[in-house]
């Protein structure tokens, strides 16, 4: 190939000779080592060099930036700690902690009934029709009928709005003051447990893979509503079966997400069974 400025009769300069030799050499290399005709699929292996070394956590500890975050989506987190789940369906009872927290004298029917009758003024103009037959039965059964009692109780629960309390609130209140809560949470009712179960259901991101497993994790809730020590997964997180390991990780995450736990759960140890088989079958 001719270059501009060169005439046919020119002698080869050393530079030109060198360039020609270089091109010939390259051509020879290409001929000797032909590239595969179809390099499209060529896969260069990836080398896994090593597992990363252990983490230096000093900077995180020394730099406790509050991480206020551009909380664009703090909603789920902010909501989680609130104890919104209404108590489970069966009995529409008033979920005031008092009922649970006062386990001393069994509130026999009588005292409950008295205040109901004692407050006929505000709304005790119950509908005209209904009361009549019921009072009849009550009279007939000689002033003791569990039916009417139950009806009265449920009616009053529906009817009476929560009245403003003049008692002290928050940590100054005797029952909720931290010093008074050494054994707080021990009076956990079954419906409280059901409420906790519902909360965990909402926060448990179940892994519905090919293999669904059941894992149980244990943990203790401390005075401040946070977990005391790590969640005990009984070694499942390090299982050689990845499905089990993942199930354990997700269960532990759900347990962490609930924190801080409601005061009634504090100072208790929980064993939570996460059943992915059932959860994935229904979801």
């Amino acid at each position: 190939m001719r270059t501009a400025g060169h005439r046919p009769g020119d002698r080869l300069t050393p530079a030109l000779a060198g360039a020609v030799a270089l091109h010939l050499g390259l051509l020879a290399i290409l001929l000797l080592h032909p590239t595969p005709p179809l390099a499209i699929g060529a896969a260069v292996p990836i080398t896994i060099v090593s597992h990363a070394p252990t983490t230096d956590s000093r900077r995180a500890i020394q730099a406790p930036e509050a991480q206020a975050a551009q909380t664009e989506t703090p909603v789920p987190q902010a909501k989680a700690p609130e104890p919104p789940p209404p108590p489970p369906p069966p009995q529409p009872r008033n979920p005031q902690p008092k009922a649970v927290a006062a386990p001393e004298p069994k509130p026999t029917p009588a005292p409950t009934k008295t205040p109901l009758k004692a407050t006929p003024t505000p709304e005790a103009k119950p509908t005209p029709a209904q009361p009549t037959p019921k009072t009849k039965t009550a009279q007939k059964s000689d002033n003791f009928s569990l039916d009417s009692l139950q009806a009265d109780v449920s009616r009053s629960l529906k009817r009476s709005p929560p009245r403003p309390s003049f008692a002290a609130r928050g940590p100054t209140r005797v029952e909720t003051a931290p010093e008074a809560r050494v054994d707080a949470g021990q009076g956990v009712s079954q419906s409280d447990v059901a409420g906790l179960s519902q909360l965990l259901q909402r926060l448990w991101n179940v892994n519905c893979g090919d293999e669904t497993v059941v894992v149980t994790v244990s943990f203790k809730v401390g005075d401040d509503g946070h977990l005391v020590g790590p969640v005990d997964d009984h070694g499942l997180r390090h299982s050689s079966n990845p499905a089990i390991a993942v199930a354990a990780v997700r269960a532990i995450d759900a347990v962490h997400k609930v924190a801080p736990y409601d005061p009634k759960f504090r100072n208790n140890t929980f064993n939570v069974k996460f059943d992915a088989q059932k959860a994935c079958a229904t979801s």
Partner: protein
Amino acid sequence: MILRKLSHAMVAALAGLIACVAALAPLPAAADIVVNVDQGASQPLPIAIPVFAGPAVAGDIQKVIANDLQSSGLFRPLDPATFPQVDPDANVKPAFDGWKAISAQGLLTGAVTNDADGHLRVDFRLWDVYAGEQLLGLQFTSTPENWRRIAHKVADAVYEKLTGQQGYFDTRVVFVSVSGSPAHRVRRLEIMDQDGFNPSHLTDGGSEVFTPRYSSKGQELTYMVLRPSGSTVYVLNIETGRQEALGHFPGMVFAPRFSPDGSHVVLSVARDGNTDIYNITLASGATRRLTTDPGIDTSPCYSPDGTQIAFNSDRAGNPELYVMDSEGGNVRRISFGEGRYTTPVWSPDGKWIAFTKQTGNVFHIGVMRPDGSGERILTSSYLDEGPTWAPNSHMIMFSRDTGYGPHLWMADISGRVLMAAPYNLGATDPSWSPLLP
């Protein structure tokens, strides 16, 4: 009588009261409290993937990882604008509270480095935000131009750690691209990364190609070329480009497919008015007939252990799925549902057989166990056909035609994920590669 009624009422009321009191009664203080959770929210897992520290390619790597995870339908990469830290140091334990505040369940941090030997190195760590622990810490190296594959490898590692299933992102898909008007269709063999990148034609469109299938080793594929004189089956090594014709068959051959060890190809051949399944030994070219039934036997597919072959046949009057031993004996029918079953494909883990099913004017992709149990329909449309499995036996790609030409689609076997594959042009007959080396 009244007394009896009353006593019934009293007993019922008493029982109700007891139940009420029992619910309110505190549990024993000393015992552990047992909680059963048997419902959950199966949702895409929120994961934060900040850009890895390092050169500009770090940003590209982050995008590929996020795209891979999101495309699986099992992850929800969070908006980087909400991150509490822009470039967290991969070697420092993160301050988890900030990440919890944006509801990140997983956090992936990493660094990209150009090594002295010219290699690209990616170090990364996966963190469990709520437990505050490291789940994974790995390092990958390769040549710089291979950065996309490194990103896929990272995504595979994260996927596996957080789902318990093998990843499938570092894979390719071979398929037939379809272009031109119906009267002048051009069908070319094409290959691309599973995320749609690096598409390349393997044939020039001069002949009509059908049913490409990867070998389980990943370097070879087999496909069929249809000419007026008949059809030819080829085996193509996609790394060397070497191509070999398996033989020219008078009439029609259908759907050649490799045995798991890559030493045989099974296919169906229409000969003398009967379509049966044949086995070809690649080393010798020896051909053996596996079925002799007068019905049409097609779409053979080996089980991953090579001991059985699934196929479809109309020997019972309607196209149904059958399984036989790899030598051709012990034939048993496995599909008994309503409709026409075709194109059975064994999953790489051997637990499922994917198939095409037609009921009325609707086509479906479905899966069932190899014994015919557990049939599950995953998709429905005007025309869904030709399923192929990702190497993790969880994701399926298939061809869907809604009246505007065939396109590639993907679904997972739970039925929760259904989406168009990342290839916008006309395409059919996909075949998913195994994980790349």
